[in-house]
């Protein structure tokens, strides 16, 4: 993640002088161009997901046979239909199946249906789930997503926000003490980021739940949940310790390492040497000459951290039985619940693209070197 920030790192340099109306029209052109491009991106991305999630239309066949099976079983078991001749019963079943397929629009060609899915998804008309229901019993995809979201946000916000700030301040600290034993330890531990969070989670469960019995194996609260609020929060915290630590341990060393390298590159710039020669305090140098030019990538990184919060960690949540979006997505895929899959994907896609768009615009406004609107007048 932080490597993206590194590549965008050479941004803040003195501004040139530009005439305002020219800038405005340029930026307007740029905004329109970017929004069209990004919207096309979402359309294609979501349509691909719709295609894959429907098995290119094959899932319709499965749905129709499920309907036929259900109706067939119900009608042949119905005592009212005992008297019917087999051929007549079959005809009745066919009629019922036809009505049901028409009700679900399954008689339309898949291409039309996929376009309908796409427009529904893009207008955030997420529809009804096929199998999954929310804990309150609703089949509305919107409600299901909203219900699972707090769990995911709680987990990933705690982990990622603490990670983000600890990484930045840890990196600043280390860049001052570069070469110290602490610095060396962080460098040595940086490659451990190759180990995914869920994997670390398994080890944490093994140590703290299986062997020492001090923390729970998984889940979000004790069963039954404690009745009073204090007890509930305590139980929640107890369940959060392991998954949060897993997420944290997975990326804290690489994040510190990357930011540290980044800060070190910036602190070897000539103007920093100049500031040192002027005799400024290291605190002033850090604030004015190192942190300020590195602010744009830090902001970018922070924006992306915020987006990825919404995206549940599928495997981590499955390993810890955490009732968040990631685990629900996996459940939805396992039982072919297309509306839930597509709903989840379109939500993340919009959030992602909106952030990219915002960042683009902010950069275009702040940094004149980001050429917007194509041609430049000499």
């Amino acid at each position: 993640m932080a490597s993206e920030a590194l590549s965008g790192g050479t941004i803040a340099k003195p501004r040139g002088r530009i005439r305002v109306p020219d800038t405005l029209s340029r930026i307007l052109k740029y905004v329109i161009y970017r929004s069209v491009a990004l919207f096309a991106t979402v359309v294609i991305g979501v349509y691909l997901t719709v295609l894959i999630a429907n098995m290119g239309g094959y899932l319709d066949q499965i749905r129709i046979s499920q309907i036929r099976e259900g109706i067939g079983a119900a009608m042949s078991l119905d005592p009212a239909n005992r008297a019917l001749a087999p051929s007549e019963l079959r005809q009745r079943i066919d009629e019922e199946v036809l009505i049901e397929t028409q009700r679900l629009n399954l008689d339309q060609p898949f291409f039309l249906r996929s376009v309908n899915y796409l427009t529904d998804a893009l207008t955030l008309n997420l529809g009804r789930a096929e199998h999954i229901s929310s804990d309150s019993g609703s089949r509305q995809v919107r409600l299901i997503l909203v219900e699972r979201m707090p769990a995911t946000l709680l987990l990933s916000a705690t982990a990622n926000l603490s990670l983000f700030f600890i990484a930045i301040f840890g990196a600043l600290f280390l860049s001052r003490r570069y070469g110290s034993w602490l610095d060396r330890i962080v460098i040595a531990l940086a490659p451990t980021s190759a180990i995914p969070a869920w994997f670390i989670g398994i080890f944490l469960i093994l140590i703290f739940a299986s062997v020492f019995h001090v923390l729970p194996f998984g889940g979000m609260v004790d069963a039954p949940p404690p009745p009073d609020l204090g007890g509930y929060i305590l139980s929640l915290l107890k369940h959060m310790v392991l998954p949060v630590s897993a997420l944290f341990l997975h990326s804290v060393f690489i994040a510190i390492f990357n930011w540290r390298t980044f800060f070190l590159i910036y602190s070897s710039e000539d103007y920093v040497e100049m500031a040192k020669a002027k005799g400024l305090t290291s605190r002033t140098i850090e604030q004015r000459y190192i942190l300020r030019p590195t602010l744009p990538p830090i902001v970018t990184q922070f924006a992306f951290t915020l987006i990825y919060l919404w995206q549940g960690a599928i495997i981590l949540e499955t390993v810890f039985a955490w009732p968040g979006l990631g685990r629900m997505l996996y459940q939805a895929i396992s039982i072919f619940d297309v509306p839930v899959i597509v709903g989840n994907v379109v939500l993340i896609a919009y959030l992602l693209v909106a952030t990219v768009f915002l960042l683009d615009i902010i950069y275009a406004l702040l940094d004149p070197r980001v050429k917007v609107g194509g041609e430049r007048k000499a």
Partner: protein
Amino acid sequence: MKMPVFLKELLSYRSAVFGLLIIGGLIALAVYTVITIPYDEAIRRWRGGEEIWGDYPRNAVPQWFGVFSGESLPTTIVVNSKDSAIQKKAQTVSADMATADFILPFEYTFDGFPSEINVFLQAQYDKRKPQATLIWKTPDGRDFQLGDMTVGAADRFAISIDQRLARKLNDVRPEIALLADPESLKPGATPKPLKGKYQLVIEGLTFDKGSNLDAKLVLYGQAHGVAGTDHRRRDISVALLWGTPIALAFGFLAAVGSTLTTFAIAAIGSWFGGWWGAAIQRLTEINTVLPTLTILIMIGIFYTRNIWVILGIVIVLGIFNLSIKVYRSMFLQVKEMPYIEAAHAYGASNLRIVFQYMMPKIAPVLIPSFVTLIPSFVFLEASLAVLGLGDPVLPTWGKVLNDAYSNGALYKGYYYWVIEPAVLLMLAGLGFAVVGFALDRIFNPRLREI
């Protein structure tokens, strides 16, 4: 950068030497595996049922566990009457009836009890099934009547779960009661096995001419082999061994496939420019919107779990990642270099310039990112397997982990089952990551200064 110089530099990093040793060890293990257990044989064994794994204990820990506890953990004892050392006594009783008596002896010297005891009985007969009476004799001279039964072509007498026998033995589990020192079975004491020579006496009675009776006594151990066994009695070492070449091949091929295609497309895009560049930009954006893991899970559940198809999709989804932009900007610089202009001037074809002149120029940049990519793909395979989407046929580390997880290994305390594949995965991950980091410093001089 010349190869020897660069190798020397790599070896100057202690961590890289450590990583190279791990990688070398894993490659050696993979080669050894592929030579000793052929592919088909590995699959046949891993997918086999009782015919292959019947004499193996269920959920046995690795044998080296005994070293830590200081006890000799029981291993499996198999005594088969088909063995030439066992004499059968046959006596004719009447025209058709005959006895078939034999003894299955064994010596028990372990500190623990077996996990399970089974007797497999086999008979050949024409019309009437033979009968057998089983008597258990302990070293101190006690006799236990285990039961009488008629024996079909292939029968099993599961001593450990025989309710009637357990009741006769005061509701102590038979595999304990039959082998325990009677003193230690008294209330308040912990049962201890009585060491010495035991016998299972089988008194058979056959009713047809040429009828035959055979028996196999299996005392399943608590420990087995280097890696232990799983819930289906399979020797985990088979999967651990075969997981090595698969993990390495998957990681390597996925890394090579995605980096090289990304690299080539970036080169072509920057050379031809125009709409190529724009298209690459758009495709990269679409790719960031596409949820890779979600798509892989959907493909695993809806279409196929074949590991090589998954590999192909991983490569395709990896082509338009963010590094394509980095490569593109590098190629744009190379494109302006004089030697490219020279090549153009003497009439080299476009493809020749791209593949022979531009790509080799910045190929070294690929090496570190390529090596650091390998562990992420190794773990990707494991991730899919942990979700139950592993290849249905092949034994892999991830599948062992998935088996362990779905059978509650952590709750039940079968730690070895989780730790073994996990340690291998971690070694592979760390080995490549450490080397990749060192390479990154060598090829990326700006990092090296710091």
